């Protein structure tokens, strides 16, 4: 990706004593729509940035730009909105699942800047400028990714609710460990749970996918 999308505009005039200004108020004040500012304007707006505390954002919604599966998307969120909730509730991306919502199950696993993370435990506002990959981006041509295919071949799901997270975790694991042993697979996917207990299918699925991806299958 090219330039880092700008952070939301921050209130330079009223810092630092006033923290709960309205979104409408500060957007009008800065004379821009959509919450997008050039980095240059931000720099010049505050000559003494190093001396002062930076201004705060929110708590009302602000417009942020997320890079989702290679495409930039704008969405208005409060600072407290998690990336998971922004995707599911604001952007209609329901492939990423909300189960425990406490970073303890793996159903919301997504790949952020090449590393697996729990979307329920990342603030959407923190995810700006990062490359976010979800299950929706895994089959852009409508074809199965080798990992998804291996999950089907090995009957690696029952109810299927943990599957999108598992597939993302497996895909990232294989990218980082192209030639895994069974023990590596068990350790490498330790951050995901399947309450149906389909691990007996998931283990061979990951090994099969790893072999296929090494053999030149599409490594999205």
């Amino acid at each position, binding site marked *: 990706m090219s330039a880092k999308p700008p952070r939301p505009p921050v209130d330079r005039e009223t810092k*630092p004593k006033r923290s709960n200004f309205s979104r409408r108020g500060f957007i009008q004040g800065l004379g821009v729509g959509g919450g997008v500012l050039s980095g240059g304007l931000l720099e010049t707006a505050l000559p003494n940035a190093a001396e002062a505390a*930076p201004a705060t*954002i*929110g708590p009302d919604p602000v417009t942020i730009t997320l890079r989702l599966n290679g495409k930039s998307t704008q969405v208005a969120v409060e600072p407290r909105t998690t990336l998971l909730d922004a995707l599911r509730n604001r952007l209609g991306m329901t492939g990423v699942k909300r189960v425990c919502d406490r*970073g303890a199950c*793996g159903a919301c696993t997504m790949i952020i800047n090449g590393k697996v993370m729990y979307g329920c435990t990342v*603030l959407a506002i923190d995810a700006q400028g990062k490359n976010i990959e979800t299950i929706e981006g895994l089959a852009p041509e409508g074809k199965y990714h080798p990992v998804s295919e291996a999950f089907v071949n090995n009957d690696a799901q029952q109810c299927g609710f943990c599957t999108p997270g598992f597939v993302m975790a497996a895909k990232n694991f294989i990218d980082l460990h192209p030639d895994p042993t069974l023990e590596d697979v068990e350790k490498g996917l*330790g*951050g995901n749970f399947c309450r149906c207990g389909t691990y007996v299918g998931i283990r061979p699925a990951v090994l099969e996918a790893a072999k296929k991806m090494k053999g030149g299958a599409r490594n999205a």
Partner: protein
Amino acid sequence: MEKFSYASPKTVKETVALLDQKTNSNPGQVEVLAGGTDLIAMMKEYLATPKLVVNIKDVHELHGIRPEKGWVSIGAATTLDDLAENQMIRTKYPSLYEAAVGITSPQIRNMGTVGGDLCQRPRCWYFRNGYGLLAMDNGKPLVPNGENRFHAILDNSGPAYFVSPSSFGPALVALGAKVKAISSSGAREIPAAEFFVKPTSETQREISLKPNELVTAILIPENVGKNTTYEIRERQAMDWPLAAAAVDLKMNGGTISQARVVLGHVAPTPFAATAADQFLAGKSIDEKTAEEAGRQAVQSATPLSQNAYKVRLAQVAVKRALLQAGGKA
């Protein structure tokens, strides 16, 4: 989660200014957000209700591992994964490496940070369910006669019964590490053994960090002995240890000249097992010595109604840590 304002400073100086201006009157009004693996869950449970959240992930100075005059400095925002992937840490400080990979969820290791491991709140289920850090109900402690199977077996005469949740804590105390912190009143270095404290009142925290202070790095001495961490947990993945032991053994040939044995997850702070240290001095590492050192380490244990099993686990953790450090495991 309550609403909060958000700031994302780029420098330590900006961070300190943000922490200072709001916290002077009211602790808990500003929270530092690093990996978020504890804070975001705490906010969802309304156990943390800050007015301002300060993201420090974009503060460049807080990242990275580098030598610093006889010490190795590990930036507070360094992720657990970055620490575990560092070859120097792996070879010279296996106690830190083992503790990092003991956090058995790759996602948590990719998100969580070294500073966050030290500052995370205890996992005590009374605390997490709103009974407070000391788990009191009408002035009576709930833990001694309650569900205490995961609670402290050492240093547990009250009022704190929770166990220190830090994975690095025992290793840092064993290695003689220091925690670097900064606030508007200046920077200071806190010996790891003093960083973790046993609170005596509900208003006190389990770490000695002041509300307006930021952990910037941990400092590990360059001169360390054979060290490792051994953790025992119920599940192989996504679980906190039930007991852990970190050891640092300074050797003189085949003999231990100085031993530091520190237990984790068995007391409100990392527990320095000085009886085991004394026993090990002048001995060589073998199965029998390791076994006896384990016994010595837990000799002052006072288990609660449901957690006597942890005494045995801590004892075995010490034995296995010693054998692992000595290359005899």
